[in-house]
């Protein structure tokens, strides 16, 4: 089978035809997982909304398990596989390594995803996303996850293989692009993640089949979180890469400094994984030294990296805009940004929400002692809806607006809706994250069917404010679900019925990437970015205030030693 390449007439990107089909497969599989997860979200939220309390307890826990797994694993990892293929073969103008194996791996992933979903909906595997032992699911729940992970692992290695081919066949000059470097970071973290998953899920599968007598619950949590938390770190690396990509695509923005951005990614590779400890801070058995070093990503070096990305991405945009002449005052560059372009607005809402809501809350509750205020309360899902939904999902949605014409060769239908969709979905999610964190601060539990404790001999009465927060969670989640469902509908209808766009030239040899000759005497000095620094300082002020308010709160509690 000879490799052919298509040059997209709209973006100038060059796609290996087989890689392009694989990307479409993963994008579609991801969106279908999002659809299932989204329907489940409706069930979850209409039950946790105290005034509605829709589902029975057993259905609720089943639906919640499906929501977690379809969103956090299947939607995101399918999409990330498309990102890996894009960042290697497309951005490097290279053929994809072993396309047939890639297809086999992709089909394995799909089989795994279906198998685990079947297990969940058969009703005897309502063990939540985390499937903590000694609570047991049916064997095919675990097997599905393992097959999915094996498929993903193979694609990670195909990504690495493609980088090797690109280097060997000299399809680009110099270093790989920053976005590919970010994808490489995500890939390295993914390999670590999947290894962690295999170490714990294979024995758990054997235990569910009766070959192993017992799995220690503490060991399970330690090893499981090597997968569970790391899988979310893949997202961070991937969506930061997408922020850089969208800034480049929409503004032609150039990284402020390749050195700084790449070093920040390197800090991710070195330290991000340690944060698995975030989940174990309120557990017995680990020492405080272990907790402090790991939970802080060894002195917060990964937080440092995120704070760097959080500044360099808008900084690159500010530089690009100032070069175009938007130079008035601190913020003209931002005011005159294309707020009606959904790729940009999604990306910017993702950046701000991830930093202000997800980042600050995550670091706060990752402090060893402060974690006691938060552990297993609904604050935790509040936090990760800010990171994974606002940060990752919204960035993926924004990129998809760009991919529909480029990859699927269709015009996006309903452009009017596309303009408002990121705000509808994104801003509603901002509120959801905030009110969930508010309810969690008052103590409301996560993964809990009834905050009124019906049937408990000694029920606890939550303060009225907690009910208010949960009511608001219900209302704004429904708005977010409308925004999310609208996006799915829009993308699916566009792919099926959107106006067909020109295919572009197909050729049998790739055009290698050539770089413009460097400007003699180095590039002109890029403009300064005072606006971005002001935004960053506002962020830091919010961070410091919120951090110490929580220590103050902690100091009022019972003495614990």
């Amino acid at each position: 089978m000879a490799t052919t390449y298509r040059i997209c007439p709209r973006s100038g990107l060059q796609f290996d035809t087989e890689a392009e089909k694989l990307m479409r497969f993963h994008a579609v599989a991801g969106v279908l997982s999002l659809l299932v997860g989204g329907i489940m979200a409706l069930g979850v939220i209409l039950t946790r909304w105290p005034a509605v309390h829709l589902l029975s307890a057993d259905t609720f826990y089943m639906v919640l398990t499906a929501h977690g797994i379809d969103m956090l694993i299947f939607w995101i990892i399918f999409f990330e596989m498309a990102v890996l293929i894009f960042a290697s073969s497309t951005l490097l103008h290279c053929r994809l390594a072993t396309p047939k194996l890639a297809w086999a791996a992709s089909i394995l992933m799909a089989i795994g995803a279906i198998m685990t979903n079947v297990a969940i909906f058969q009703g005897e595997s309502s063990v939540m996303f985390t499937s903590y032992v000694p609570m047991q699911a049916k064997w095919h729940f675990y097997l599905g996850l393992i097959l999915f992970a094996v498929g993903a692992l193979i694609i990670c290695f195909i990504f690495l293989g493609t980088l090797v081919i690109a280097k060997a066949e000299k399809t680009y000059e110099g270093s790989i692009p920053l976005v590919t470097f970010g994808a490489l970071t995500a890939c390295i973290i993914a390999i670590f993640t999947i290894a962690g998953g295999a170490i714990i899920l294979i024995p758990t599968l054997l235990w569910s089949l009766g070959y192993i007598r017992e799995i220690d619950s503490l060991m399970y949590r330690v090893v499981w979180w090597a997968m569970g938390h790391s899988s979310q770190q893949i997202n961070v690396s991937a969506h930061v890469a997408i922020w850089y990509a969208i800034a480049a695509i929409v503004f032609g923005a150039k990284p402020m400094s390749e050195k700084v951005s790449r070093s920040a990614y390197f800090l991710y590779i070195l330290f991000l994984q340690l944060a698995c400890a975030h989940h174990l801070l309120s557990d017995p058995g680990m020492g405080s030294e272990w907790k402090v070093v790991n939970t802080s990503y060894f002195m917060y070096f990964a937080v440092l990296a995120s704070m760097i990305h959080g500044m360099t991405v808008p900084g690159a945009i500010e530089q690009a805009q100032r070069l175009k002449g938007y130079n008035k005052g601190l913020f003209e560059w931002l005011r005159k940004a294309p707020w009606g372009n959904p790729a940009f607005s999604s990306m910017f809402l993702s950046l701000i929400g991830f930093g202000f809501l997800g980042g600050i809350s995550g670091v706060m509750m990752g402090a060893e002692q402060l974690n006691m205020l938060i552990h297993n309360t609904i604050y935790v899902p509040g936090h990760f809806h800010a990171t994974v939904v606002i940060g990752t999902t919204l960035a993926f949605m924004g990129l998809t607006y760009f991919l529909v014409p480029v990859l699927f060769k269709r015009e996006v239908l309903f452009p009017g809706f596309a303009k408002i969709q990121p705000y509808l979905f994104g801003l509603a999610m901002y509120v959801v994250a905030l009110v969930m964190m508010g309810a969690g601060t008052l103590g409301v539990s996560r993964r809990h069917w009834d905050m009124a404790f019906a049937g408990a001999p000694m029920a606890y009465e939550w303060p009225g404010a907690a009910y208010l927060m949960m009511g608001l969670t219900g209302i704004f989640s429904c708005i977010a679900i409308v925004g999310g469902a609208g996006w799915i509908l829009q993308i699916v209808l566009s792919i099926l019925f959107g106006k067909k766009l020109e295919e572009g030239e197909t050729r049998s040899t790739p055009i290698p990437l050539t770089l413009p000759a460097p400007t003699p005497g180095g590039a002109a000095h890029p403009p300064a970015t005072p606006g971005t620094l002001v935004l960053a300082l506002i962020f830091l002020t919010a961070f410091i205030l919120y951090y110490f308010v929580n220590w103050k709160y902690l100091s009022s509690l019972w003495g614990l030693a």
Partner: protein
Amino acid sequence: MSAILPPADRIWWKHPIDKLEYTWIAIALIWSLTMFVMMIWWHIYGNQNLANETYKTTKEMYAAKTQAVVDKYTVRTETDKQIPVVKPPAGSDIYLIGRLWDWWPIYELEKDKTYKLHLSAMDYMHGFSLQPQNINIQVHPNYDHVIKITPNQAGTYSIVCNEYCGIGHHTMVGRIYVK
């Protein structure tokens, strides 16, 4: 020229770093180190640090220790389920069982006195969530976690289970009195 292309200048690592970018990196580094020191500082000067004292145990052994305390210090029973209310002397070891679906027994403690609270689960994992204090601790089967607690306010406190433990999870609420 952009993040989706290879760096235009092949020797990109020799580019000088923008002054504002440098400033931000320095600020972020200082803040990162501050937060790191904060946790250590609290271990030395703070009064709320979760103990790590933990022993391997068995369900039978832990249940027997709990029963011994209950037999010795029970002052009355409460609710239809006749849950014992146990009033141990200040400073003693008190054992709390988490199981499907209750926290057993109820303790009655004195304000500003210190007790050694033991936590363990009999079946699945459970979540010790003391309300309205909002102190949350993971409880494992086969591990005995020992925490020195000093209640600083009188009142009736609830222990909500906040680790999912099956269909009756929401009915799992216990109680501690502080007088």
